[in-house]
């Protein structure tokens, strides 16, 4: 490309200081901060007024018990723990902590429901309940979105437009399969496994509950689900929805608690199947703990996805894809595009575009409909992000953070990226799970593939180019469970999701996802 071309957004081009557009209409001289270098000014000429989603109609109980056997039951442990709003650290509610005895009770309830009703019920009947849950989620979409945002810190526009609709869509999708399993596995008889113990993370609390519960129920299993300790509320609202849908008692049980509760669930002798989504570290511990048992296991773990942008890509749209890839949900996304691999020839242009784009991002009250970046989910996660960012700075990497003002209370981190990152850097290798992008360069498609695959993870990848053939060539070589072409973070219940290597095994969604919840004859 021609560097003298006036249409290149090259910021290095010298500009005559008196450049005007030569009209009599007051069109002005370039007024950048540094003389001679035009710059966009994303200032206060027209400010958006606060637009908070009203929360007065949402009722959060002061205390939640365990949901076992279709009833709300006080924990045998007798103890409760608080759940807070990470955007201001205020307490939202307190939640029962399930100990081993509680987990045992929940597994027994699930076993009972499995043997007495759910496994015997025709698929078409199971489907009715699952459809009912899906519809109830749509009806309560606003309430679910607000509670998700309050408990987890994510922007309301994401919980409203992504988390809740997708969660509902998963129930609808799997309800459709319940009486058609024969067609999913043609010529083979699919039988349920029994009781599934499911442990989910805090980044998409309701959506992950849907990913786990919907296929399990469709295939005739019953479940004991443990939501994450920082975000238990929407799973508990889902339990209420199950009650209202008159789901038979014990088909879905929700036990709240932290790591010990999860360990008790995964380790319980009468659980037939363990499904875990979370960190690779915990996933390995679970795998070790249940090794040699009858339990089936699926793990959906961490990621360090490469978002690969070629010079021939539509760059402005690729910028949006990169932004969405890493800053969606504050980067608390296992499939986040946390490594940008940019073709060296467009590195400077692309980084300049990214900087301008970051300047327009709005960080603040997660309930404000115009918020792009919400709160970090917990202090622990914020500390982890800060530690890794500090390591990048210690390595001498160039950091750029959006000039956002951080609220005084709560857990916050501005959208950030590092340039000049090497494959050896910690921030290129370790999952940060925060709004921090590592930018690396490549020269050829082969080099892009090598760098993209040079990680212990393999959950997702993105490829940006105007050439269809290049996308397919790349997709064949990339070792990742999901590969997006000219888009990113697109999820659909019909599309299987899961990892390679230390990103886990098993798939969720689609026909492949059903296979994790059935035993096949013949």
């Amino acid at each position, binding site marked *: *490309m021609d560097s003298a071309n*006036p*249409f290149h957004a090259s910021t290095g081009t010298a*500009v005559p200081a008196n450049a005007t557009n030569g009209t009599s*209409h007051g069109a002005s001289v370039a007024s950048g901060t540094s003389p001679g270098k035009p710059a966009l000014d994303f200032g206060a000429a*027209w400010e958006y007024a606060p637009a908070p989603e009203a929360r007065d109609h949402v009722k959060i109980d002061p205390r939640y018990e365990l949901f076992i056997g279709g009833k709300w039951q006080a924990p045998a442990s007798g103890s409760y723990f608080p759940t807070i709003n990470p955007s201001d650290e205020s307490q939202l509610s307190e939640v029962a902590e399930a100990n081993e005895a509680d987990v045992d009770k929940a597994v027994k309830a699930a076993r009972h429901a499995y043997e007495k009703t759910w496994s015997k019920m025709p698929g078409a009947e199971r489907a009715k309940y699952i459809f009912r849950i899906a519809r109830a989620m749509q009806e309560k979409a606003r309430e679910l979105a607000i509670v998700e945002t309050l408990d987890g810190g994510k922007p309301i526009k994401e919980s409203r437009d992504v988390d809740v609709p997708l969660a509902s869509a998963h129930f609808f999708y799997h309800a459709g399969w319940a009486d058609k399993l024969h067609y999913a596995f043609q010529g083979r008889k699919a039988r349920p496994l029994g009781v599934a113990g499911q442990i989910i993370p805090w980044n998409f609390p309701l959506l992950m509950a849907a990913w786990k519960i919907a296929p399990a129920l469709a295939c005739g299993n019953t479940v004991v689900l443990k939501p994450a300790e920082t975000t238990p509320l929407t799973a508990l609202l889902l339990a209420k929805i199950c009650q209202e849908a008159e789901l038979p008692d014990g088909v879905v049980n929700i036990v709240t608690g932290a790591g010990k509760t999860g360990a008790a669930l995964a380790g319980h002798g009468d659980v037939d199947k363990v499904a875990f989504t979370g960190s690779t570290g915990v996933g390995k511990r679970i795998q070790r703990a249940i090794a040699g048992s009858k339990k089936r296991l699926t793990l959906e773990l961490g990621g360090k996805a490469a978002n690969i942008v070629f010079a021939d890509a*539509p760059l402005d749209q690729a910028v949006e894809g990169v932004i969405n890839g890493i800053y969606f949900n504050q980067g608390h996304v296992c499939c986040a595009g946390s490594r940008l691999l940019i073709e060296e020839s467009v590195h400077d242009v692309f980084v300049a575009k990214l900087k301008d784009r970051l300047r327009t991002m709005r960080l603040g009250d997660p309930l404000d*409909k115009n918020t792009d970046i919400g709160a970090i989910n917990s202090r622990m996660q914020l500390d982890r992000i800060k530690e890794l960012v500090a390591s990048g700075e210690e390595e001498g990497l160039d950091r750029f953070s959006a000039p956002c003002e951080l609220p005084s209370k709560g857990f916050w981190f501005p959208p950030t990226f590092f340039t000049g990152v090497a494959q050896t850097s910690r921030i290129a290798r370790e999952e940060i799970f925060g709004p921090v992008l590592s930018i690396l360069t490549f020269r050829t498609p082969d080099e892009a593939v090598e760098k993209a695959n040079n990680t212990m993870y393999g959950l997702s990848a993105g490829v940006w180019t105007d050439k269809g053939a290049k996308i397919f060539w790349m997709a064949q070589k990339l070792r990742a469970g999901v590969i997006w072409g000219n888009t990113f973070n697109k999820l659909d219940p019909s599309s299987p999701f899961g990892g390679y290597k230390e990103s886990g095994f098993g798939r969720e969604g689609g026909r492949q996802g059903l296979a994790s919840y059935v035993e096949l004859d013949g």
Partner: protein
Amino acid sequence: MNHGTIHSSQASSTPGSSVVARPRPSFSGTTVDKVAIEERVGALAKRSIKKQAKVAGLKLTTSMIDLTTLEGKDTPGKVRALCAKARRPLASDPSIPACAAICVYPNMVPVAKEALAGSGVHIASVATAFPSGQSPLDIKLDDVRRAVDFGADEIDMVIDRGAMLSGDYAKVFDEIAATKEACGPAHLKVILETGELGTYDLVRRASEIGIAAGGDFIKTSTGKVQPAATPAVTLVMLECIRDHYLATGKKIGMKPAGGVRTAKQALHYLVIVKETLGDAWLTPDLFRFGASALLNDVLMQLEKERTGNYAASDDFSKE
């Protein structure tokens, strides 16, 4: 897309073209992904503009409107009434600014000039065999010169879409450059008629040509072809304006025209401008709406914000 340059040898095929000193550019080769750009404007449409932001945005909108009438049945009486509305959109509320301009056919320019004397409202005239542009260049240039002589200080020209679609970019460039010259002191808006160009890639290329050939503004549409202005096509053009500004320091204006009928749509466009080009473009010097029905909807929304109630449509003058 090929990174073609415009071959000057093709210029001789343009009848009546004057000598053009402006150097023809090579293209950037920038392409646009349809799905992703529509997704981006869709995301920006979700911005919630309430209360004082809404009032400020709507007043700004009023000041950016090129209040337009482009009908065969236009008469001096109709144009005078429109001019009165442009000068003072709502008699009961002097805090609402005047419109940026009146946009009429050349024959109506003298009427508008008289009606707008001393108001500061600009007079835009369409020219160059608007809306099709399918006339010889010398006639198109004469159209421009006469409109300027009549008193137009802004000229809204149409590009030769046939030349654009057949790949004769030199012709498109040369005609714009010649029109710019014919404008003299008048300000030139280049209408791409994006609804006839078919792809965002071609919109981008036409924008580059319009800017390089001397357009002060680039404008989406004549209003005579569907689709007219859309948020996505506007974003494509704003991105081109941004890239040109960052490379040269020159600020080019933008005018979506046709199809912008509601206050809500107008605020969506302002959001796109604010988050693509920043504060400097939030001015009628660099952003305009070509519209007729829009103004009354904006006034109705402003009255609603002021009084708390929606007024009847008959409470606003219809021109």
